[in-house]
């Protein structure tokens, strides 16, 4: 765990030097000291961007870990339960009807993200087929499809010269427009949510065993589960709102953390936060350095995420009885 922290710090510092100015690759220490443009670039663009990538990866991974534990299913991810599609729909709605001011897009994305989860949950309670987890996933698929259909209508209606582009970029996910202001806007929500998830990680273990057991061990399962879910959705919605749709991190990072540190959330959750941060920063580095035009972050995480996921599925027995 200590080495993960060291690695994270190293990746953050390394990424500060990495970019395409003045030439692709690493900027020299001397240039930063002498070149004022380089200074501005590093401190006003790169640093907030790297820190946001850190928050993004940490939040998605932590929320993924929390969701997997709460739903007792290692294959769950906030994206499966209507949160991501809801947030995308919310962002598009705002871009088209409410003018698309950055803060409004974020608020709308967060609101619809929570709505997506709520709808999935309410629908799952009424589904009369399969176990609870299967019902949730089915409900999530239905709600996600509902929102993506809505999104389709919105894209069709959007002005192709301005609004459609904005929606598309948002859907691809990326951090090119991050400034200190945006970083500071999401920081409080993300920090509080991560803190709650981190502090409650022991009890999270119990929630993964089912309500009957959690209750007999002195928990108030409904209340504690709701608190953790809200924390997970809040963090996810906050980072999605500035970064757009970035998928797969929430699913694969907790798997990797579990493989290295075991299932106990005492270690799995902090490890997910750290590995998630490292992974997101590195993906973002690739996106901004590899080509002259930037590759959207969502594409890179999907590419790498899907590959890692396939690898995990082939090489690891994922035990699940539900």
């Amino acid at each position: 765990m200590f080495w993960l922290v060291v690695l994270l710090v190293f990746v953050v510092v390394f990424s500060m030097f990495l970019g395409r100015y003045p030439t692709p690759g690493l900027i020299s220490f001397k240039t930063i000291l002498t070149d004022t443009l380089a200074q501005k670039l590093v401190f006003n663009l790169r640093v907030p961007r790297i820190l946001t990538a850190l928050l993004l990866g940490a939040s998605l991974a932590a929320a993924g870990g929390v969701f997997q534990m709460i739903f007792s299913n290692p294959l769950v991810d906030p994206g499966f339960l209507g949160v991501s599609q809801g947030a995308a729909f919310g962002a598009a709605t705002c871009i088209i009807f409410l003018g698309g001011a950055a803060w409004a897009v974020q608020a709308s994305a967060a609101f619809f993200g929570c709505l997506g989860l709520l709808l999935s949950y309410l629908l799952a309670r009424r589904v009369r087929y399969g176990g609870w987890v299967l019902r949730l996933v089915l409900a999530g698929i239905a709600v996600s499809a509902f929102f993506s259909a809505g999104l389709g209508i919105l894209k069709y209606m959007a002005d192709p010269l301005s609004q459609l582009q904005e929606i598309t970029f948002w859907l691809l996910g990326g951090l090119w427009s991050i400034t200190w202001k945006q970083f500071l806007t999401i920081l409080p929500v993300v920090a509080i949510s991560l803190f709650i998830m981190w502090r409650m990680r022991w009890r999270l273990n119990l929630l993964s065993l089912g309500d009957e057991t959690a209750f007999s061990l002195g928990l108030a399962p409904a209340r504690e589960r709701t608190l953790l879910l809200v924390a997970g959705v809040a963090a996810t919605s906050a980072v999605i709102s500035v970064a757009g749709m970035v998928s797969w991190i929430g699913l694969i990072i907790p798997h990797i953390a579990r493989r290295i540190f075991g299932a106990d959330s005492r270690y799995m959750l902090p490890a997910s936060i750290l590995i998630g941060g490292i992974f997101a920063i590195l993906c973002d580095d690739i996106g901004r350095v590899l080509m002259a035009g930037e590759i959207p972050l969502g594409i890179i995480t999907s590419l790498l995420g899907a590959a890692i996921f396939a690898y995990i599925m082939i090489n690891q027995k994922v035990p699940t009885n539900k």
Partner: protein
Amino acid sequence: MEQQLLSFDNISYTYPTGTSPVIKHFNLQIPAGTITAILGPNGAGKTTLIHLALGWLHPHSGNVSLAEKPLKAYSRRELGQWMGLVPQNENTPFEYSLLEYVLLGRTPYLDPLAMPGEKDLEIASQKLSDVGLLLLKNRTMPSLSGGERQLVLVARALAQQPKLLFLDEPTSHLDLSNKSKLVQVLRTLQNQGVTIVFTTHEPDVASALATDMVLMREGEVLETGPADQVMNDRSLSELYHLPIQVKELNGKRIVLWDN
């Protein structure tokens, strides 16, 4: 007067999705220090009864009291320290080690945001060794056999150090040697003053372990009393609607049935 540790006072309960009550005007007193078997066919309402005792379900009428105080008078955490549960089965998709799993039993003694400490680890190891699985402490839960997993659940409930322990069909996954191990563990526990309540649909198990017995059918008490009085041909035959004979052999009761 003997102290009643747990009492059900005219309890009725209907599931929200159900139409008829699962538990009907149920009365039962469980004195401290006893081992009570709740014996009955599948669907008699045995598990529901345990859930009511834990406070997990709330009766529609009547009262459950623990040490002469209604359940509502206790906090969640206090109830966690009073009562432990070994559930019938538990979904464990994650690869916890056995020791981590047993350690979870310490939760009622921890502050809401605290992590278990050295002392908790010591207790967890001790309980794992009590059920004979200390050597496997670093194995993961999904790699165990059904019987071993059941014993780990027992160890976790022991780590909870409850005064009252519920076991829901504890022997259903156990082979004979594990059954006998469980019986030993529970007897030791009784000697330490823990009150034990378990459900079973197997009369042999009930007979091997229980001091007291409750025969339960369709949510009602058919008969209750000391095990040696309740275990007889007439009451068991009535319970299962089958001709059943109870015989004594070397001081032990065995149950025979005809098809």
